[in-house]
């Protein structure tokens, strides 16, 4: 995963070319797409379906390989497209399991030492790993957490994220901003506690 600047500078055209190649069935192009998108999907799906993320990601790719020929667009569109498939698959999965649509994204065994948002924030500061960062984001209210994940981790713009979640772009923007402010607040207070 790269920052948006790097994506724009190096990858956007390459990835769009990869989308075209993959549509034609070119294996190496598909591999490029997979390597870029799969970590994004897994991290987003982990929030939606916990430890079933890998299975749902696999179903997502299976459907994507089948339907890729009908997809039209650049790489930004592709990311929105496959994230949409992933979310539908996750929601189907959750309906099958009769769960709440949004749940806390961590393995059951980790729940025992889950003390609360501030505690998670403290741990995130100690050693910011990908897991701890995702866990911290997951402590946000559901709409904020999903907005931050879709925008920052999956890499969608507000409009695409809105279409995907059935919300208005403005609502997604606001949810993501609020999420960031909440995270910043928690991180700051955790740091203050650590300092005192």
């Amino acid at each position: 995963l790269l920052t948006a600047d790097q994506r724009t500078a190096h990858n956007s055209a390459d990835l769009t070319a990869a989308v075209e190649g993959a549509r034609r069935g070119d294996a190496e192009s598909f591999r490029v797409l997979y390597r870029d998108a799969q970590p994004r999907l897994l991290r987003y799906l982990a929030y939606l379906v916990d430890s079933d993320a890998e299975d749902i990601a696999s179903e997502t790719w299976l459907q994507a390989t089948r339907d890729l020929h009908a997809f039209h667009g650049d790489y930004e569109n592709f990311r929105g497209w496959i994230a949409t498939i992933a979310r539908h698959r996750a929601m189907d999965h959750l309906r099958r399991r009769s769960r709440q649509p949004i749940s806390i994204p961590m393995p059951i065994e980790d729940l025992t030492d889950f003390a609360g948002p501030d505690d998670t924030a403290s741990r995130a500061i100690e050693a910011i790993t990908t897991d701890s960062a995702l866990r911290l984001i997951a402590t946000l209210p559901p709409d904020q957490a999903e907005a931050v994940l879709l925008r920052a981790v999956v890499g969608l713009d507000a409009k695409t994220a809105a279409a995907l979640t059935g919300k208005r772009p403005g609502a997604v923007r606001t949810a993501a901003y609020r999420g960031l402010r909440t995270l910043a607040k928690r991180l700051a207070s955790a740091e203050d506690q650590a300092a005192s």
Partner: protein
Amino acid sequence: MRTRHTHRITRRTAEQLLSGSARSGPEQLIDVLNAATAPAREGELAGEQAAMAALAECEATLPFVANHLGPAATPGERKMFRLPLAKVLTVKALAWSLVGLVTAGAAAAAGTVALSSLGSASRDTGVSSGSAAAPRVHPALAGNAAQGAARGIARGVLPAAAGSARPASLPHSQPLSPVQLCTDLTSKVEAAIGDTEGDDTESEQALASPSLATVLSSPAFEPLITKVDDAAAVPDYCGLLLSLPRVPVPGALTQVPASVLDSTLASLPADRLAQVFGSLPAGTLSRVLGGLPSAELGNALTSLPAADVTMILTTLPDPAAGMILTALPTSALGTVLTELPASSLDQVLTGLPTSTLGSLLVALPSSTATEILSKLPSTVLSGLQGALPSSILSQLPLNLTTSWGGASPP
């Protein structure tokens, strides 16, 4: 600059944070977001090989669906319905698609929607030559098979059916026609460059686009390149096949081998042919026409309206016009010249070297030669009389000499 403590994040900062381009903002939050978007960790790409296998299997079972039964009609397909020949080809393509689907249906262990819905057709019709090569899956089980394949991907294991469905063993691998390939090529380039309207102009632009090279490099389009010997000739070949009003890369039309070009031109409707010729620079036009076998050249020129033939012959440099006219079979030459209006005939014939003109006239049946010459103004005729060698003059029909005599009193 990065700040340690701030709860005030502006919308602009938030946008930068979300897009990963923030250069200022709360330090800890930036670190958290960077960690959340860190490069793939070991294990996150564990399913890659299985996903690749699933792709390979889809490619093996679905090419016709991909190319011809997609939800959106490609620009080429919409255009094709206007042409009787293309209509036939489209029907054939659909027929092949269905055969491919029906026979390959049983191989679809991955259980696609399209295949599972057609699976029953496979049983009913008994058209299932692919079943020997691939395990049969009851349509009702297709969903389970998909689920199983998905689980396989999750564990980094190849789906069970991946090894049994090889492209070579499936009957759908019947090659696509050049028209189908060109349609596919055009729509893929259009998609790559963001054109979606798909009118003739955009198809031309797509075929002339630099993006074409990338799309064309796919093995799927190899037959096209093989057909015309050179990738540079593909855009124009496709332009002609798809009956576009102008060739996409006029200068490259001469790259198309004459044998391919003449059969392609022969299949174009006359009005389109005239448009295409009219869009070519004179140099290219003369090389193209001069490269055609005489029979095809004759067909091309006699099928065109006289005005277009005139335009073509008068556009060409004189030596080229002469070469083309002398290359025409006698019957075609007669038709072309007698159909030309007197003013154009004058222009065309007087532009020719006299030796060429002489051999043209001698080659024609005398009645035709007479008809042609009788259209010419007397000044031109007398000029010819003086210019043509007596060996030629003696072979010209008697009544022609008479008319000459009448036209130029002593």
